[in-house]
């Protein structure tokens, strides 16, 4: 009895370790090679170098891409979080016919295969004469990420005492004041984490950006251009930079979600 339990325990631990190795080994390898002096990713490694970081640092195309990515992801995160909050609040506050259908529609975009979404966006933007603009990428990314923002904020609003808003009205707060004084402060951790999450998704997103961005290339698009046709360790350097940026955003989002759960637990 004890032996089989122990065996299962070790098996599960091993399984988890394997899983993490499988997921993170390529990323770690890429990070290691980004500091490797040799041109080709082979072992044994050469010497430690900042060379690849220096070359991308001096590459104006990369700088443009980073600038574009920052503009796109910050605008996207603000827009998507705003739309996500409005949708989540609608769900919290009102009940109406076809609400199930409304929610399903609101959550739909991430379930559409990216390539189809990207093609559809491109076709549509081309028709209205808006393809290749920086704001067309922003619109496309907002559509794609708003459901994530909604899901995170909705989770938070579901924890609210349903009488809290009415209580504020009862004490003399108008609907807007109650929104500002009660709902927004309550949802604040979720709003910040939705901002981080949507920014991270937008920053990483390749397929839609590649189709829609035109000359306003984002970082993932420039990475593809660099790797197309040659092996260039610069990619490892950019990849490391992208990985650290989006992980930071996701971790901030996760910490915010976890601390608020801990705080709410005893109440």
């Amino acid at each position, binding site marked *: 009895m004890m032996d089989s339990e122990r065996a299962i325990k070790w098996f599960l631990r091993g399984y988890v370790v394997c899983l993490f190795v499988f997921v993170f080994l390529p990323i770690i390898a890429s990070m290691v090679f980004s500091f490797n002096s040799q041109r080709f990713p082979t072992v044994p490694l050469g010497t430690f170098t900042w060379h690849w970081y220096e070359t991308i640092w001096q590459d104006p195309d990369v700088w443009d891409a980073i600038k574009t990515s920052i503009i796109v992801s910050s605008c996207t995160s603000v827009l998507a979080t705003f739309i996500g909050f409005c949708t989540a609040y609608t769900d919290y506050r009102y009940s109406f016919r076809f609400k199930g259908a409304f929610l399903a529609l609101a959550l739909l975009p991430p379930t559409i295969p990216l390539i189809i979404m990207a093609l559809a966006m491109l076709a549509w933007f081309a028709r209205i004469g808006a393809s290749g603009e920086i704001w067309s990428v922003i619109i496309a990314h907002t559509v794609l990420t708003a459901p994530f923002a909604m899901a995170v904020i909705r989770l938070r609003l579901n924890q609210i*005492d349903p*009488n*809290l808003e*009415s209580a504020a*009205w*009862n*004490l*003399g707060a*108008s609907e807007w004041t109650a929104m500002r*004084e009660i709902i927004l402060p309550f949802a604040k951790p979720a709003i910040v984490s939705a901002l981080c999450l949507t920014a991270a998704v937008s920053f990483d997103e390749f397929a839609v950006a590649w189709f829609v961005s035109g000359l306003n290339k984002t970082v993932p698009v420039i990475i593809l251009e660099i790797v197309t046709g040659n092996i260039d360790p610069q990619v490892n350097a950019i990849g490391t930079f992208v990985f650290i940026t989006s992980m930071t955003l996701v971790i901030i989002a996760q910490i915010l979600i976890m601390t608020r759960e801990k705080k709410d637990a005893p109440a």
Partner: protein
Amino acid sequence: MSDPLVVFENVVKRFGEFVAVEKMNLDIQQGEFLALMGPSGCGKTTTLRMLAGLEQPSEGEIRLAGQVMNDVKPHERDTPLVWQSLALFPFLNARENVEFGLKMRGLDAASRKAKALNWLDRLGLADFAERPVDQLSGGQRQRVALARALVTEPQILLLDEPLSALDAHLVIRMQGELTKLQRELGITFVYVTHSQSEAFAMADRVVIMGDGVIAQTGAAREIYRAPANRFVAEFVGRNNILAGKVTSQVKTAATIETPAGKFKVNIPKARSFSRGDRLSFAISADLVHLSDKNPRGDNVVPCTLISEEFVGSVITLFLESADGTEFKAQIQERELADIDLKSGSTLYLSWPAASAHVLED
């Protein structure tokens, strides 16, 4: 008597097809402690929410201090509510919660703080003012909710089952404090509850509601001793309810034939019955006498014991007569020493005719 503070005039509230409140007419006096009591879904909370403006009447008129309130928004009235869930703002501390209503009225920070601290102090929470509300006990949170509602010095305070989340011993204490507070402030309290003990312990006047209709209005003892109808008799206290046909009537004394036997009742002056009319009556479980010997005379039912409920000095016995009618008897524990319950022999319930109270339907 001065004008009532609150008037409900033919108020109807529908949710789609469902009628939550049906043609309600009710006056609430200045300085009165009124309890709205009834089983869940009887419309008591809807009535309170209409008073706070959180629901709008489908028909009829609600007036507060003479002013028609139907279309006045919740934040434009001064009808603070103490919520069943308390609905304290979780990201504010106790003092900030209490200050909220004053802040909404545009008071400056210093006077807000002074007033809030004054109220917290009055309710014994002076040391907890800066505590986050999730670090307060149930009773303390309750007081914060009270202070938050009272800090704006309203004419009327609405309470929606505010004690239902508290431990039994705290409930008794809070009942005492609420009654005292209401006397001191002299303002109107409208208290919604399903608990008879809470309503009877505190209220000057109790309104019993069932299925959206007011079943009876009166002082607690009046309702307890003279329930108007079967609904009230079943909802309030432990009543034995019997129904049957009038077989004879001599002046006010009538004989009723029920499945459990023939019983004598006194007909109230305002009522008149003829032979064959159906009539129901209630005998409070604490007014019946129990014996293991047949006392002979009127109003005696032979019964067998089904079960008993022991809560201390009082024991409730559940009995059944030969035809299957259930009876309840509340007996002092010491009285039971003289009665043989164990052997399973027949027990005799009896009551004087004056203890039987004739119901309206």
